């Protein structure tokens, strides 16, 4: 029975990976990756890692993939197909074309695969050909949430804390990178205006307060719109 599930999950994982690499439309690539992650979670379950499998489904296939879908919907998946010819033509004068570059990339990946298989399967480890360490089901046994939690709060406490800081830094970095940026203020002829008050840091060139619509720049803009509600319509809103 476990062999049936292994082959189902293994074929699903490899097919999902091939789909991510081959499919043209980024949206379908994301869907293929979701299928790949779900098959991988099944493989983790077969390896008795229940907690990691649950995290894989909830965090990876759930949260992270939703983020990807949102960005694909926002950026709009542009088809790469029509540009293959253009790249090939651009490179025809000097060096290899796009197709032969692709073939070289495939050769590199095949060499990497063979090397990895030699390294992983050709080791002298005898335990590779076994089913793994002896396993007895129980409430606190290998792979359960209690087991992982105990490890994280005793032996790997520092790792746990460092990971939490890393997540915090990444969240702040994501907000800073993707925030809304206003340009400098412009006069009637479209040239940017700097007043002496702006010299330390020109208003509207990006703080997090301004990103969410607060700060001195937005307040001045609101005041200007209240004083001259019709004149404010000329400003392009970004």
């Amino acid at each position, binding site marked *: 029975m*476990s062999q049936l599930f*292994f082959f189902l999950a*293994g074929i699903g*994982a*490899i097919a999902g*990976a*091939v789909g*991510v*690499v081959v499919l043209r439309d*980024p949206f379908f*690539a*994301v869907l293929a*990756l979701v299928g*790949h992650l779900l098959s*991988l979670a099944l*493989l*983790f379950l*077969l*390896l008795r*890692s229940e*907690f*990691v499998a649950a*995290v*894989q489904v909830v*965090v990876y296939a759930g949260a*992270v993939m939703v*983020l*990807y879908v949102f*960005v*694909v919907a926002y*950026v709009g*998946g*542009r088809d*790469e197909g029509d*540009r293959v010819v253009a790249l090939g033509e651009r490179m025809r004068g000097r060096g290899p074309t796009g197709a032969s570059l692709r073939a070289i990339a495939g050769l*590199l*990946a*095949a060499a*990497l*695969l063979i090397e*990895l298989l030699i390294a*992983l*399967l050709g080791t002298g480890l005898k*335990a*590779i*050909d*076994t*089913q*793994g*360490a002896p396993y007895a089901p129980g409430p606190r046994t290998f*792979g359960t949430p209690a*087991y*992982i939690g105990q*490890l*994280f709060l005793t032996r790997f406490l520092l790792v746990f804390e460092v990971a939490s800081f890393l*997540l915090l830094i*990444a969240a702040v970095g994501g907000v800073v*990178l*993707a925030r809304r*940026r206003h340009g400098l203020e412009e006069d009637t002829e479209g040239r940017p205006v700097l007043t002496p008050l702006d010299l330390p840091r020109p208003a509207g060139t990006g703080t997090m307060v301004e990103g969410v619509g607060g700060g001195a720049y937005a307040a001045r803009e609101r005041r200007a719109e209240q004083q001259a509600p019709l004149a404010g319509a000329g400003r392009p809103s970004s």
Partner: protein
Amino acid sequence: MTIAWYLAISAIVFSLGAAGVIVRRNPLVVLLCLELMLNGANLSLIAFSRMWGNGDGQILALVVMTVAACEVCIGLGMIVAIYRRQLPVDVDELRDLQG
């Protein structure tokens, strides 16, 4: 199934991801292929953890997932910033940093 089968699948998934990183030009898909590579490494970590009956590999796999989430956050933020500045979303066009 023996551990070797799982290791073979992890090697195949890792090299497929590497091929995708080299071949694809949309930075979104390059990030997806990076996820593939991380997941291939995760599968081998979990398999080795099962082989030894020791939880350290699972802890490392969870940390890899955390790092992957951070990488997605920053990478997607950069893609959104590139798109907002109306630069082409294509790793062949964005070659200004090339030495």
